[in-house]
């Protein structure tokens, strides 16, 4: 019963809500089913399949709130979970940040559920791993990879008349290929809502090629370099920036968007004017849920337009407290780019470094969003428009804000971790030391 239809979910939620005696009650039903396969040293190491449905109930008496969850759905269990949440609510302190549940909402319908992904079976997973391992064996490489896929649904109903339902599917695939002598390593990662777009054999060729070409890397002096960041390299740094665009933190003075005098940088130019970032749950390449966790509708929201900060997200409490527009955190991130391919960007580079992946990224200073981390699994030196040779990995210390001010060029956006991000060419990217790691 892991993936309930809208009618099935609605029926269970309605029945459960019928047991409520609280002032307000909101019930969320989540279900998922999926599987995974992991391989290393060119053989399968673990594989598994999982399935779960769970219900979470929040009951409120005045400003007191209590939560309970359950994964059984007979009448008795439904009543039990409602009562338990009510008991907890009665004992809870009053919340100074109370805000009433939302009433009925209008949601756009987004297509994030694909039968292709929902129908994956163990044989598909074994075959997907076998194709990837074959790509490694063919070139005397060692593959370690992981594929996982899920079908999910979320449904929500409350005593104020809100109802929301959204099904989705996703597959995540990644593989690292290493040369037998341990001097070369390559990586690829791909994710889709529709698994028919995934070809693990073909994707693995990219990792294989990078591994073979990254043998015997040369050492370059650390310093400031022009870099071409593939989307798999830039995504984590960018996400760290976008996930810090919280209005409250900015207004409290503890965010990179805070300014002297208690002001924020909303409305100011923060990065290069070619940078425009928005979220849109209806984008067919990176579809997302049409509502946020608290039931607020997700619509197209522009976060940065031509380099200027346009919107900050907030909680319903903070929005109401400050009289601001209520904007939930986004379900996806879409960064506009150009039409250039990665190859075009390499061709137009006189001297630079191509980065496949950044790893172990950690915040150094939240004030400036300075992050450190390392390049990994395919780092190459470019000269006069050509990849010349592999280079040893670097540690970087860089802020995505500084990086997006040092923009040279944007390529064609690609899907990465549920977002659309272009490859980007950045000047003066700060590498602070060398790493011997392969």
């Amino acid at each position, binding site marked *: 019963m892991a993936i309930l239809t809208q009618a099935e979910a609605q029926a269970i939620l309605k029945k459960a809500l019928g047991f409520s005696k609280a002032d307000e009650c909101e019930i969320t039903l989540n279900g998922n089913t999926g599987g995974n396969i992991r391989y290393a040293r060119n053989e399968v190491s673990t594989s598994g399949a*999982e399935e779960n449905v769970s219900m979470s109930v929040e009951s409120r008496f005045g400003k007191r709130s209590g939560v309970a969850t359950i994964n059984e759905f007979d009448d008795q269990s439904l009543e039990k979970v409602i009562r338990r949440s009510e008991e907890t609510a009665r004992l809870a302190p009053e919340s100074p940040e109370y805000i009433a549940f939302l009433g009925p909402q209008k949601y756009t319908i987004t297509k994030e559920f694909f039968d292709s992904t929902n129908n994956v079976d163990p044989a598909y997973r074994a075959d997907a791993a076998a194709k990837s391992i074959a790509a490694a064996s063919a070139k005397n490489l*060692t593959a370690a990879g992981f594929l996982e896929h899920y079908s999910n649904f979320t449904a929500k109903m409350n005593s104020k008349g809100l109802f929301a339902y959204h099904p989705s599917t996703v597959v995540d695939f990644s*593989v690292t290929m290493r040369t037998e002598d341990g001097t070369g390593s390559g990586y690829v990662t791909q994710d889709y809502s529709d698994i028919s777009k995934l070809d693990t054999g073909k994707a693995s060729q990219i990792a294989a090629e990078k591994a073979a070409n990254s043998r015997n890397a040369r050492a370059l002096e650390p310093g400031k370099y022009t870099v071409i960041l593939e989307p798999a390299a830039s995504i984590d740094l960018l996400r760290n920036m976008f996930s810090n665009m919280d209005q409250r933190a900015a207004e409290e003075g503890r965010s990179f968007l805070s300014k002297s*005098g208690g002001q924020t940088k909303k409305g100011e130019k923060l990065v290069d004017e070619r940078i425009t970032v928005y979220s849109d749950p209806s984008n067919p390449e990176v579809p997302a849920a049409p509502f946020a966790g608290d039931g607020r509708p997700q619509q197209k929201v522009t976060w940065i337009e031509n380099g200027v900060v346009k919107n900050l997200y907030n909680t319903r409490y903070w929005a109401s407290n400050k009289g601001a527009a209520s904007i939930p955190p986004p379900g996806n991130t879409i960064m506009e780019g150009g039409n250039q391919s990665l190859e075009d960007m390499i061709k137009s580079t006189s001297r630079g470094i191509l980065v496949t992946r950044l790893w*172990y990224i950690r915040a150094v200073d939240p004030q400036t969003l300075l992050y450190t981390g390392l390049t990994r699994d395919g780092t190459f030196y470019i000269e006069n428009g050509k990849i010349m040779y592999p280079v040893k990995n670097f540690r970087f210390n860089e802020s995505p804000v500084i990086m997006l001010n040092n923009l040279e060029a944007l390529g064609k956006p690609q899907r990465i971790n549920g977002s659309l991000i272009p490859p980007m060419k950045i000047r003066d990217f700060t590498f602070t030391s060398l790493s011997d790691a392969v």
Partner: protein
Amino acid sequence: MKRRNFLELSALGFGGLMLPSIPVFGDIVSPERMLEQVDPALKKRLADVALNTAKSRGANYADVRIGRYLQQYIFTREKQVQNIVNAESFGVGVRVLADGTWGFAATSDVSDKGVAKAAEQAVAIARANAKLQKEPVQLAPVQGYGEVSWQTPIEKNAFEVPVGEKADLLLAANAAAMDNGASFVNSALFQVNEQKYFASTEGSYIDQDIHRIWPNFTVTAVDKASGKFKTREALSAPMGMGYEYMNPKASEKINGPAGTGLVGYRYAYDMLEDATLAAKQAKEKLTAKSVMAGKYDLVLDPNHLGLTIHESVGHPLELDRVLGYEANYAGTSFATLDKWKTKNFKYGSDKVNIFADKIQPGSLGYVGWDDEGVKTKKWDLIKDGTLVNYQAIRDQAHIINEDESHGCCYADSWSSVQFQRMPNVSLAPGREKKNVDQLIAGVDKGIYIAGRGSYSIDQQRYNFQFGGTTFHEIKNGKIVGPLEDVAYQSNTQEFWNSCADMCDESDYRMFGSFFDGKGQPSQISAVSHGSAHTRFNGVNVINTARKI
């Protein structure tokens, strides 16, 4: 998706925690329910059903883990309790060896039928995977221990302390910080109880009751005029203890270096005292001198050094990593078998003695038996600077010519398959009597670093960069004032070879990681790292200040 929810903590201001999100397993239950125990006789009967079913289906070996995992997390900010999570997860995991291959299946249906079905599935999976196996699994022998039990030696079960009392302590710490000039404070108390029953066809029935606790906070100071803000994290450690850790004791405090006001906490934490100092230090950081980049001698506090040990010694000596099983995610290791085989690979200076264990009282790793029924012990990883051993479990021991497992196998849930996890990894204190002021007295140009900060290391564990919570400049043997914008970058082997001196046993205390991640799908584990204050010479320090 596993049966776990993720509480996104980034919005709560826990920037310095070990993970961007805190995993919560299982269903939300009442605090009273958490005090219930499952009858061991029932667990033995169910375990026998699993083992007998597995054997009758052709397994050569089987183990079963019946686990009840309890978590209570309390989150507050300033004057307000933000969230209280009480979660319980109960189920059974069965692992078998059939046709020389592992198979694993788990179920939340804790009945004879449910357990038997999981055992059958595990055998079927092993048989299916056997076709892809190149070499049969070799298990190091282990003794059957019969019916035995073990409990974390706690004085006060944290789950028995009323939630209100615990929330009040956090709010009192918040008030102490706010009264001393903090702009904001977020605090949390994490409590975990694992009730684990392990049985195997080797003849063991092991009932264990394991407790862990971690109080934590982040204090933020904002200077509105300049728009600057700074944070100071708690100097607590996550511990394998009960609520007694929360009761301050003068005998468990170790004074930090003269001129810093810092206090080290051994087996009892004083949250109010630390929150008070944290607020003062967060404010002090707003105007502290920015470090001049260059080479410095570092004196590292145990609450800081723990994470450096974790990343640069703990992880690279995990045998599965060394062999390539973690290549796609966590990475591999520079500490390869050929280096170990030379018997003279100098990991560190002669002063460096690093041991692994699962037996230190108060540590997060302390248990009687591991998750494959191996009695826990202590062993050397680095002896007088030389690499001498790794961390290995039953199916790996033969690879490093050992005839028994080290006893460091762990699964984070009944529903996860157990695999090799880091035991406690600790730096032995010095033999010569020395306190931290005496250690600092020998340093001409140095930096004293306390507490956890930013940490990053490459996938083979060569190059790392660490920050900290507080920094103090050392000149001519004395602390002269606070510093900011400090991070040190080094190479693991160079760094440990620059280890010059350390304090004695009386200065030794533990730090830990409560949510250490490994594997795909990722599992967490908790692990401690003990050390005394230690000095490293000539380490490269960078300045991390930037303008945006």
